[in-house]
């Protein structure tokens, strides 16, 4: 028969493994972004999403317990410390990747706005007059 503490410990170990796996996926995402390996990037996105969702769901009861005033689990402090550290790494890595993706999108939006003036929009807007020579200049 498994005790409650054992079950919690086991559950914590599973969450820890999941967090490590997510960190690895995020590191792979960094590599894909840096090497512009868009095929591989698309392939790992579902895995990343699924892992993140599962991790978030698994952590919810623990977070709830700590919010309600329960102490952090004593029975496996090392695992808990490692998990918290891994979660910090996940957050930092995800933020770095997200910032890079945002910047890439911004560049492409700016590039597109040079080619296609913003003439679409809701409301009673008059269409903009055609601007001559509005495009990428190839001369200095």
């Amino acid at each position, binding site marked *: 028969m498994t005790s409650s503490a054992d079950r919690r410990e086991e559950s914590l170990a599973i969450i820890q493994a999941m967090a490590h796996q997510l960190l690895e996926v995020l590191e792979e995402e*960094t590599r894909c972004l840096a090497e512009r390996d868009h095929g591989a990037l698309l392939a790992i996105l579902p895995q990343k999403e699924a892992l993140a969702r599962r991790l978030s769901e698994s952590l919810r009861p623990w977070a709830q317990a700590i919010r309600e005033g329960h102490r952090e689990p004593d029975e496996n402090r090392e695992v808990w410390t490692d998990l918290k550290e891994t979660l910090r790494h996940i957050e930092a890595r995800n933020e770095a990747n997200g910032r890079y993706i945002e910047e890439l999108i911004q560049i492409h939006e700016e590039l597109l706005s040079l080619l296609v003036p913003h003439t679409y929009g809701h409301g009673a807007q008059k269409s903009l007059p055609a601007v001559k020579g509005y495009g990428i200049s190839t001369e200095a």
Partner: protein
Amino acid sequence: MTGLNAALEIGKNALLNAQVQIQTTSHNVANAENPNYARQKALTVTQGAILGRAGWIGMGARLDRIVQQRDAFLEDRYLKASSEAAYYDTVKRVLTAVETYLSDDGDTGLNAALNDFWNAWNALAQNPEGSSEQAMVLECGAALCRSLNETAEQLRQSRDGIVTELNDNLSAINSLLSKIRDLNGQIQRSETPTFMANDLRDQRFQALEELSKYLRFRTEEGTGGTLNVFLDDGTPLVLFTEYAAELKMTGDAESFRIHIQETGTLVAQFDAEGNVVKDGLKGSTGALVTAMGTTDTWHDALDQIAAALVTGFKDVYDDVLETPESYFFDTDKTIAAEIRLTDNPLPSTSNALARAALALETEPLDALNGLSLTQHLTQLSQNVGLAVESASAQSLLQESMAQQLNAQRQEVSGVSLDEEMVELIKHQQLYQAAAKVIRQTAEMIQTAIDMV
């Protein structure tokens, strides 16, 4: 001018045009390896026709101007990405160097010294009268102090190194800003509304690219081909041909300010005491200011450990010995750089004293935000590792972004030897054809003369 003379004139102009085009092609080929060179092209336009008996008769072609193949959008984006890449690369470089002082393999370093220290107290708790146990506590205490002193000294040296590097950066920035202002002047003097000073513009772009490694800026085209350079917050760095800012740093590794000499505008600031880190520069210079702040935070964390050790042991001695002859750590030296043992660290020993001292290992301390000494040191190591890893990831991505944008820029502006060879053959054929036109026309003129 009509007739054969006109044909001769057209042929001559075509020869001259082809010569300039071949010269431009060879100029491109010669600069093919220069990444800051933008490919040039000699454009021709149709010469104005004249009205003859048969109507408007074409008069050949003339050179219009020599243009550069540039994309302002990509260049601007590339310069920004270059600044970002330099920022994260510098943060990574500096923090990685600092990490070596704070990293711990378990056998050496602060964590190991602290563990040995607690182990020695544990042994003393088992045998309070044992002289070897007492000697071990003193030795491990001294080793812990040495370890804290050395780490603090290494961090101090790192900060001094950052200040030296900052001064070097500022001197390079000032020189580049003056160069850009001077090039603005040369470009303004050389350009006409039609003719661009292409090669001077290349030199200016090269200076801008170098500048982008040191700080982040934006540019605005001024009159007469000049380029004005501003910091992100709008502080002018170069204005037309008149002004180039001079950045100056005052202070030392504890507190410094970087400001514009002429206006006194503050662009970056660091103050260890007030925990002020202001970076309005970005690029590698801003990164140094940021790294200075991070290193200082880690230094503060070390000082907190030192202070907690001194205060913790003082409280233990006060509690257990009531009126101790002396304390374990010198209570006047509460920072990591100065912490040391007193001349008589163990005025008396007892099991109670050893156990009370040992309890400090795991006791949450208010001075350490509720963490124990060991936890606080572990957290410091983790923070250092995380900061370095985060900077490394950002550096990798930003470097990739800069490379990507530079490659796109090169696609527009770079010299393709294949294309230049095609151009060369085309102009060579054009030259030969024009020469043939002249030769045939001269023969016809001679025939006409002979007829007279």
